[in-house]
């Protein structure tokens, strides 16, 4: 479709079009109508789909629209349109037609010969020989003769109007006025009855239908109805509420250490030797004649093949007695080492109570208060103040002493809310291959740290800029600095950059770093004028009877139900404003 004409369709049940309810737009394609003025063809339904109207091609070259069908199918308004049935030929009386921006046009309300339905025709002014309706609210019909100048006007304000033109055989025009008078303009140019015949008769008016509909024909900018991309989402409905407000949940405890470990398998033994014991082993293997290398080599190429790893872990591991050291199948009976009881060890760093809030208000929480935790061997992490404020936090490590992997679990209150992984073992090279691997690992870690530092460096100018700005402002007026920096807590904090305090420091780097985990709490420095609560009050949101606030000082109200007052309406409005602005009761 192109060049759509838009019809505004209104209805009401009283004789008051000024307050008629807009029903919908009806669109007609211009190119369906041969005169290019108006055409009827499509209807935009309430669900925005297009309905092709019941068009019939007439011998006169006009399209015929069956209005009763149209309105019945379009307007789901039974109290009005159910009366637009076939045999109620005052049907059209309830229709008002208004042309907006069009010089002319007609509405013809016709019946077929059997009076079975009514049709409405819109005619445009490009058609010659047709009169022009310039007054939209008068009934014009021709009482006699054929001259277009001999219009007669209704004495009543009519709800339908029409131009008249000479059509043949098939035109009846019905008009209806609020008084209950029905005018029938019968047009017939058949032999002996050339011209118009207008009659009238009294009809009883069905209550509520006399001004049932108004149609505005407009040549507004052609309008293509849009397609709502959320059509498929369904129509909005009221809902919500009925929640349980059950804020109970399950605790997430620190898990137990794994039950099975490499030490249980029998292929590997983990020892926890002291320095002197390690020295003794080294001496035995490299210098002691008792070590039968020839016999050992029957199974292994190199004695060092049987030493899977030597590492340093940052904890005292639990042991279960001592045992002779066996290197592969060679028992070294002269040396006994403590045996590590389990591959997995737990290390509890203790707790930090955060149960007492700093402010005792919303500033204790995100985004105003920010908390970072430095977890040795894992890194530095941002944790949410919302998760930890008001609780005791406990940090527990689970360490795999064989591989050096570790997991640090942060328990907030009764549940583990954060887990960080890292590596805490420093591998000691015991042969050339180990050494190369160790150096490679160290190099990789160094690169990682360098990258982190570079990232932090990129953020540094922002910090510096902030510092310079604050300094400059301080040089002039500190108060203005505060205002410029951000009027509210939210404003100020939103400008704060997030700083990475360190990267992941694991293994050897971790062992050289701070060995005790800690948290960094960044809180806003609140600015409270003296007696602020007396002058502006503090946040409150409670329902009160105003009399109960007597002597309670300053109050601003969100809303008040002002009832039972003898004040004028204007005074009540002023009082409402005063109560919202703040009063001392």
């Amino acid at each position, binding site marked *: 479709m192109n060049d759509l004409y838009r019809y505004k369709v209104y209805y009401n049940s009283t004789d008051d079009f000024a307050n008629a309810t807009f029903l919908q737009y009806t669109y007609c394609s211009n190119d369906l109508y041969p005169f290019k003025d108006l055409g009827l063809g499509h209807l935009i339904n309430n669900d925005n789909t297009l309905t092709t109207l019941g068009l019939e091609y007439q011998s006169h070259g006009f399209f015929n629209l069956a209005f009763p069908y149209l309105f019945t199918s379009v307007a789901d308004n039974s109290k009005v349109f159910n009366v637009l049935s076939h045999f109620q030929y005052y049907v059209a009386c309830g229709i008002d037609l208004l042309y907006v921006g069009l010089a002319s046009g007609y509405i013809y309300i016709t019946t077929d010969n059997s009076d079975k339905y009514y049709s409405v025709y819109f005619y445009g002014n490009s058609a010659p020989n047709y009169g022009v309706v310039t007054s939209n609210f008068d009934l014009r019909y021709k009482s006699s003769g054929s001259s277009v100048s001999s219009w007669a006007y209704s004495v009543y304000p009519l709800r339908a109007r029409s131009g008249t033109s000479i059509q043949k055989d098939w035109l009846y025009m019905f008009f209806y006025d609020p008084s209950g008078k029905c005018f029938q303009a019968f047009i017939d140019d058949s032999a002996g009855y050339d011209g118009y015949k207008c009659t009238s008769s009294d009809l009883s008016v069905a209550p509520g239908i006399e001004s049932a509909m108004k149609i505005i024909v407009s040549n507004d900018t052609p309008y293509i109805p849009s397609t709502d991309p959320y059509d498929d989402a369904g129509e909005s409905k009221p809902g919500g509420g009925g929640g349980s407000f059950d804020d109970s949940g399950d605790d997430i405890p620190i898990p137990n250490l794994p039950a099975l470990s490499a030490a249980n398998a029998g292929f590997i033994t983990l020892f926890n030797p002291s320095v002197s014991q390690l020295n003794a082993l080294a001496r035995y293997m490299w210098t002691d004649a008792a070590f039968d290398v020839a016999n050992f080599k029957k199974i292994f190429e190199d004695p060092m093949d049987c030493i899977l790893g030597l590492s340093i872990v940052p904890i005292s591991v639990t042991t279960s007695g001592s045992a002779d050291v066996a290197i592969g199948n060679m028992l070294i009976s002269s040396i006994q080492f403590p045996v590590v009881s389990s591959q997995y060890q737990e290390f509890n760093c203790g707790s930090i109570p955060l149960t007492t809030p700093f402010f005792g208000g919303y500033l204790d929480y995100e985004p105003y208060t920010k908390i970072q935790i430095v977890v040795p061997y894992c890194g530095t992490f941002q944790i949410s103040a919302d998760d930890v404020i008001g609780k005791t936090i406990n940090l527990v490590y689970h360490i795999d002493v064989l591989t050096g992997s570790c997991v640090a679990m942060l328990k907030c209150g009764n549940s583990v809310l954060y887990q960080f992984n890292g590596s805490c073992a420093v591998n000691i090279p015991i042969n050339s291959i180990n050494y190369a691997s160790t150096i490679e690992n160290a190099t990789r870690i160094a690169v990682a740290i360098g990258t982190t530092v570079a990232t932090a460096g990129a953020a540094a100018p922002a910090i510096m800029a902030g510092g310079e700005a604050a300094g400059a402002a301080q040089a002039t007026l500190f108060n203005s600095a505060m205002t410029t920096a951000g009027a509210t807590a939210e404003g100020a904090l939103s400008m704060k950059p997030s700083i990475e305090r360190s990267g992941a420091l694991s293994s050897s780097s971790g062992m050289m770093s701070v060995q005790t985990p800690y948290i960094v709490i960044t809180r806003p420095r609140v600015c409270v004028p003296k007696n602020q609560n007396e002058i502006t009050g503090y946040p*409150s949101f409670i329902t009160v009877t105003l009399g109960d606030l007597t002597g309670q000082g300053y109050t601003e109200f969100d809303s008040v139900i002002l009832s039972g007052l003898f004040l004028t309406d204007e005074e009540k409005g002023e009082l409402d404003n005063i109560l919202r602005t703040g009063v001392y009761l």
Partner: protein
Amino acid sequence: MGFNIRLITNNSADNVADKNFTTVTTLEGGTLRDDCSITRPTIRITASVEDIQKTNYFYIPQFDRYYFLTDCVSVRNGVWDITGKTDVLTTAWDKSNLKQCTGITKKQEKQWNLFLNDGSFKVYQNPIVTTHLFPTGFSTQSFILAVAGSRST
């Protein structure tokens, strides 16, 4: 129509409901000027300059309203046209039913809840940064020697 008028010195702020005021004098026979409203009346009274000087507030019992004195015009010696505007807060509080009305507070001097974030507080740009150690850190190291072969006791 004659009016009784109590001329008052109001010592409180306009937004105080239970105002602290001192009666200057009570007059009888004030005359309502033409075309004046009950909410912004202009009344002709006879009063001394001293009394007028102290007056910033008045009360008309027939209207059951307190008024802020907005203007005072000398008509002739000792005769004044005083104009007022209803003090709706005190009138509703003292003479009407405001105490029984129900409302929801937005800010309150004593019954507050600081967990409500309404942007009341300003903060300085320099935050408070504190660090807190966990009680136990890594203070020892141990060697771990992993060898192939089963434990031999």
